[in-house]
């Protein structure tokens, strides 16, 4: 496709131009960076990545499937979704969406997810300075990976360098018209250099070769108990993981009014696998941690040929007890 440039001082106009669509970009909410609708007059925040991944834009944490009345059989469906543009999504998070697409269009199409996904244009921002715990390069990605993106931006200081990647991206750029400038040959060189340097800056790495095949062999290993011992069973690693997609469906009834909702669930929660009988096939954090790792590095690979981890480092950064996926993988490799 083709490349363009956007001057940073024109960000306001950019926001205005996309005014009719819903533009999401990283915003500070209190102390925390999240993706949120941009309002006119806001600036581009300095950020490495958001604490909360943008997955909730296409896969909301709570989604009403339909509403009903107790004692009644009629139901009403929620209204359709609007077009959205996500500005500043990091390549890892975009890759995650591409990964999850496989799941939601696998045996049956999931209309709720796919509709939102189709109506969302992802404008990514390459990482010039990856974080300590970024390890995207170990799992098939990179600081300038384009997978899942419609447009990739690279920060050149004064300007953003735009690489238009898909039709959706092109449509978006066209709608911006005059705002964009033609990119120069030098710019592209500078961008490529930046991308290369960024990749060099990734300090934590692991060779995942062999892990997916052999993980199942460690099913009964002592390793899992050791790793999971300090685990608190909270939802940080899964809720903040851009590729985790598990959900639960619950009815929420107020008086006589009810709605059936789909909401994120976490395999690290005890009741995730709790049977009505009281039996729990994954009764402790040991089994749950094993499942989380196996799911990402074995089951998903088996089903879709890809590791369901994009190396964003969120679970490492935010785990309250320092359970570190790279440390786990290292131990797994040692045990193999």
């Amino acid at each position, binding site marked *: 496709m083709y490349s363009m440039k956007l001057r940073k001082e024109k960000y306001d106009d950019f926001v205005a131009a996309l005014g009719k669509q819903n533009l999401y970009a990283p915003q500070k909410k209190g102390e925390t960076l999240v993706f949120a609708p941009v309002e006119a007059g806001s600036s581009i925040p300095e950020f490495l990545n958001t604490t909360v991944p943008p997955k909730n834009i296409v896969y909301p944490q709570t989604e009403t499937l339909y509403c009903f*009345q*107790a*004692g*009644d059989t009629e139901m009403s469906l929620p209204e359709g979704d609007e077009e959205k543009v996500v500005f500043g999504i990091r390549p890892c998070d975009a890759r995650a969406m591409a990964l999850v697409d496989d799941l939601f269009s696998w045996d049956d199409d999931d209309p709720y997810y796919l509709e939102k996904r189709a109506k969302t244009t992802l404008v990514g921002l390459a990482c010039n300075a990856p974080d300590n715990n970024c390890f995207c390069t170990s799992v098939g990605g990179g600081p300038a990976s384009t997978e899942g993106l419609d447009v990739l931006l690279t920060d050149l200081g004064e300007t953003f360098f735009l690489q238009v990647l898909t039709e959706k991206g092109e449509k978006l750029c066209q709608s911006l018209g005059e705002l964009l400038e033609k990119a120069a040959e030098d710019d592209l060189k500078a961008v490529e250099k930046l991308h290369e340097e960024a990749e060099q800056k990734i300090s934590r790495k692991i060779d995942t070769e062999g892990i997916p095949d052999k993980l199942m062999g460690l099913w009964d290993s002592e390793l899992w108990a050791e790793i999971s011992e300090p685990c608190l069973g909270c939802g940080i690693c899964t809720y903040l993981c851009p590729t985790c997609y598990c959900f639960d469906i619950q009815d929420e009834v*107020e*008086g*006589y*009014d009810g709605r059936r909702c789909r909401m994120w669930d976490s395999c690290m929660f005890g009741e995730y696998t709790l049977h009505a009988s*009281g039996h729990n096939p994954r009764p402790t954090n040991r089994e749950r941690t094993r499942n989380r790792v196996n799911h990402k590095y074995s089951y998903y690979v088996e089903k879709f040929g890809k590791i369901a981890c994009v190396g964003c480092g969120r679970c490492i950064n935010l785990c309250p007890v320092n359970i570190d996926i790279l440390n786990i993988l290292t131990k797994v490799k040692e045990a193999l």
Partner: protein
Amino acid sequence: MNNKPKIGVYVCHCGINISKTVDVEAVTEFASHLPYVEVARNYSYMCSDPGQLLIKEDIKNQGLNRIVVASCSPRMHELTFRKALAEVGLNPYYLEMANLREHCSWVHQDREEATIKAKKLVAAAAAKARLLEPLVENEVDVEPATLIIGGGIAGIQAALDIASAGFKVYMVEKTPSVGGKMSQLDKTFPTLDCSACILTPKMVDVASHPNIELMTYSQVEEVSGYVGNFEVKVRKKARYVDVNKCTGCGLCAEECRLHNRIPSEFDMGMGKRSAIYIPFPQAVPAKYTIDPERCLFLTRGKCGKGPKCIDACLPGAINFEQEDEIVEFKVGSVIVATGYDLFDPSRKPEYGYNDYPNVLTAMELERLVSASGPTGGEILLGRGKGEEPYIPKEIAFIQCVGSRDASCGNEYCSRVCCMYTAKLAHLMTEKIPDANVRVYYMDVRAFGKGFEEFYDRVRREGVHYIRGNPSEVFKRGDKLVVKAEDTLTATPLEDEVDMVVLAVGLEPRKDAREIMDLLRLSQSGDRFFLEAHPKLAPVDTATDGVYLAGCAQGPKDIPDTVAQAKGAASSALILLSSGKVKVQAQISSVDESTCRGCGFCVEICPYGAVDLVTVNRMGHQVQVARVNEAVCKGCGACVAGCLSGSIQQRSFKDEQILPQIAVLGGMR
């Protein structure tokens, strides 16, 4: 059984009481569209037989399994409708009421607003009704015995009634003899029977009745358990006299080094007794007791060369080694007949009770009048040491001392003072024919049988009634001066008299708190024990199986006391003779699978109904809470204190209340 909710909603017009303000038709129509509602009807009087029949027929014919009655307060007719459900075989706890009358039609005038509110109330009731569960009223066995605390006339009467019906009675009396205050009285109003003559035979009956176990000089230490199954611990205080050997001859008292040197409580301190004593000659049991606070041997460790009473006692009954004894037994019910204290007139210093020996309380005069009293029935007042006693000629009674008087904390009327004053005034004119007797009063309350007639008679006998509350009693020369105002003539008076008698009122006993804690009783505003209902349950208390008799519940005269004692006895007998007692159904229960045994509920329960028990949960020994269903009263305080929601109150579960909140909050 298919338990899909099928709700019937019945909206009552209550004549026009509801329908005047609430559009009953609209509410019925609205209710018929509520989820799970099969039938919605309205009727002029749901509580009437035809009204109830409507419900019963629908239950039978349409298979309804939840009933909502939208009518008056459930406090009024919940039981009525529960019975109706039960009569056609539906569990009575499948009923929920919406209060459209007291809480809606009677308190609102705007028909539109009231109708909307009525709809909400009905919808909330239906939302809860859907989630109601059938409850069983369990039964527990009743221990066929009664504990009676207090051996006054109330306790005596109750004991005799219950014992005569064939049930065991344990009577516990704090003092060495039964008889109580009545035994101190000379005559009783208005008939002027001799108090001792009518009381002593009953006292003897109590002691000799084969079904009554009498424990005098004893105190209840502990009562645990619950209706039908109370466990009682009684401390029998050491008398230092073996009651099986004591013949009541009294030689010991004659020999006592403190013979006639200790003020006699029975004679209000005007007579004297020994350190070894019986309270009064007719005491039952007629067994001597050594006063451990007075006896020289017990207080100082020596009594001359040795206690003389030991030598005097031929049967060898005296035993200084004796110790308190704890007796334990089980009873099904308890009657509290602990009586009252007399108002202490030193709390009204203006009447000079502490200053002048010729200011007496009515009870003191009672003892003076009594033939068995310290003066052998003569009205003789001492002037002080060495001076000749004299007979008072000018006598003033002051009524309402410590009654109807907010300044001393007693707003209530003591109910007996008017009549005992009249009686004593009469006795004065009888004993001292030339005496001038006047009574200062606020109002004369002569409401009982023969009371007004007696009051008239006393006035005819020359007792002068002056309406006015004296402000002061002071001394002028040999005389006492009563300063008052005759409010009927608006005349200030300074009345010189020889004797002032204070008609002191009745007060709750000072040790009432101990009994309250023992039996979990409450006090009413007057600090007497609180009955379960002032009109319809005047002998019952909030604690099932515990009943009140006599002045412990409030001031009353002897006939009322006896009547209430018989009432308490009959209530206790209902329990004992049926042998079973139903326990509350709407009580708490624990989900032991989620309880974490923190014990908050145990701490909170006012009845001690929750215990922690150890159970085996999948091989682990864990502590969980468990409710004693017979003890739980269904207040639900434990439920709100439980963090995990593991303890729930039947019919008031969280999942039953939350839908009510949803409907009343949002009405969606």
